[in-house]
């Protein structure tokens, strides 16, 4: 069944700022997507499902979580639809409505990244990855390469705070985190 078709696409348009209703399904976004092979719904299908009002399907889809925001789709779209902001809206909706993220490790990485910036004002890779490994319960993947990077000095062992950390924290407060 198609339900509240109009309202759902309107909400997505309002929240993402992207004109999804202009899509005519040329599939150029799908054609250029570097991670489409891992997605359950292709980028153009995501737009289609939005227009069909299939919110439940979308909030459980892996596509928004696997999108790497490379912006290839948005750069190439003949109707000027950037899918990265649309995918962000879908992820936000899933979290707000208590739907478990379809890709838990991706969500763990997002959280660790955000935490690292809140703490230091910039990313500190070592502590961020340690947090990620704990969150994702995945301790040993890539550990050898990580050690090599530390030995070669590519990843600093100690974190470095930025000067105006207070400004970054103010941003976090404004988003309610």
């Amino acid at each position, binding site marked *: *069944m*198609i339900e509240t*078709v*109009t309202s759902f696409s309107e909400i997505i348009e309002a929240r993402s700022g992207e*004109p999804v*209703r*202009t899509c*005519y*399904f040329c599939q150029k976004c799908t054609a250029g997507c570097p991670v489409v092979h891992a997605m359950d*719904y292709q980028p*153009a*299908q995501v737009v*289609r*499902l939005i*227009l*069909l009002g*299939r919110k439940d399907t979308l909030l459980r889809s892996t596509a928004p979580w696997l999108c790497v925001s490379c912006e290839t789709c948005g750069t190439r779209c003949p109707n000027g639809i950037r899918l990265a902001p649309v995918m962000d809206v879908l992820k936000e909706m899933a979290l707000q409505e208590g739907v478990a993220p379809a890709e838990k490790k991706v969500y763990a990485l997002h959280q660790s990244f955000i935490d690292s910036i809140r703490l230091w004002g910039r990313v500190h890779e070592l502590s961020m990855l340690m947090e990620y490994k704990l969150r994702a319960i995945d301790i040993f993947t890539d550990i050898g390469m990580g050690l090599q990077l530390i030995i070669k000095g590519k990843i600093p062992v100690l974190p470095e705070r930025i000067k105006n950390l207070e400004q970054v924290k103010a941003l976090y407060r404004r988003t309610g985190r």
Partner: protein
Amino acid sequence: MRKIGVFVCHCGLNIAGTVDVKRVVEAVEEYPGVVFATDYKYMCSDPGQALIQKAIADHELDGVVVAACSPAMHEVTFRKTARAAGVNPYLTEIANIREQISWVHEAEPDAATVKAIEIIETIIEKVRYDEPLEPFSLPLVKRALVIGGGIAGMTAALHIADAGYPVVLVEREAQLGGKMGQLSSLYLNFDTAPDLLQSRIEAVTRHPNIQVLTEAEVTELGGYVGNFTAKVNGSEPFTFDVGAIVVATGFDLLPQSELGEYGGGRYPDVIDSLQFEHMLAQGEIRRPSDGTLPKEVVWVQCAGSRDPELHKPYCSKICCMYVAKQAMAYKQRVPDGQAYVFYIDIRSQGKGYEEFVQRAMTEYDVLYLRGKVARVFAEDGRVVVWGVDTLSGKAVEVQADLVVLATAAVPSAGARDLAQRLRVSTDEYGFFSEAHPKLRPVESLTAGIFLAGAAQFPKDIPETVAQASGAAAKVLGLFAQREMVQEPTIAFVDEELCAGCGLCVAACPYEARVMHPWKPIAVVQTALCQGCGACVVACPNKASSLHNLATEQLLAMMEPVL
């Protein structure tokens, strides 16, 4: 004794590369009746033509054979050349030694040369027995008949009448307007159809050169281009002469009852697009079953079109655009309603058309679903549409209040019968056939009968008006001639030999042979004769013959090749 000159063309290496042209010239020079023979690189070039004219003057030739390419290519050229030098054009003939010899016998140059000599000799024999002929002229009635009073017929009639020629406009219905008269508003600007139409109807009915016959049909047509005689069965039967005819009989929609899988003719809330136009025109969009306002409306495109298995294989061409218009018009009247359109492809070819369809999607929130509808059935007072959205790969079910079928456009009822009466050909679906799909799109295959609008194939109003204007231009082109010229190479009857058996009348495929009104002989209707020779074969008394292809002449022509 006729003095014949033979001119052998090399056509560069096209002919000379295979055929030994020098040997050909030497051989035909010796042939009886030939007083001059030569060859040249390109006979159709200016120096080549000058060479022919000089030889005609020097040798006082009264017959010319040009051995070159197909007569379809340069017969006219060389006949003109010879005429300018004083030789009757019908005493100039082409021997085709390119298409029929050099191109097909490249591997056997010797045999090709022998064949070229023989073919040229047959044409020499033909010229020996050819009679000098002149094209004859036929009178031309400068009045047009337009069949069909829709926008196509009215447009053609107005253009012809404005140019100063009388027009008889025959309309089957009581009113002018045709299908356009049944429409509400028109894409792209939602112009009101009746307003646009009314100005045309008034112009037609008030025009001093247009005679409108409503509730009338053409029952019989005789004659030929420039001299047709039409019978019309109006309020009083009526016969008149016309020189040209425009067929503008339009289209109909495929009967809904043929679309059982879509509930056509089975459920009151499944209607066709013209019924929906009627609702829009009346300003009342209501479900036929209970008179309530439909909140979920589904349009089914390609209902009977693009379906070679069950219905029509062709695209009806007009539906994509009018469905977008109808869905938008619906949303203008019912803003909180939902409009769905099931389609296979959107074909929006025309100035501003694509943008119009996009507006339906973006500004009016018409939901386009790409996929053919599988089934429409009734359930709990609603019509349920089963389809698929191939873009997401999901099956779709819509509980609709109203389903509008964009049924296939088919030829107007009776079009085939009319075509037979007019001796005009139709395609396998009954649409009138154009003479050439690209170069002669407004002419039928019958001289003097032209086509306008959806009678030829589904067309929207701009295209119809364009074609009707084109048809009018063709009629005016015909009327601009002082008289009509006809080729003289046609059949004739030797009255001494004719026994009046009538076999030739039945044999003639062009209805060019009739019995004399009182004498027991057959006569040729010269304007209709195409010179095919069927009557010559049919005649047991050898009374039928063709000018410049007489039986004795043909036998003489065969002599050299036997």
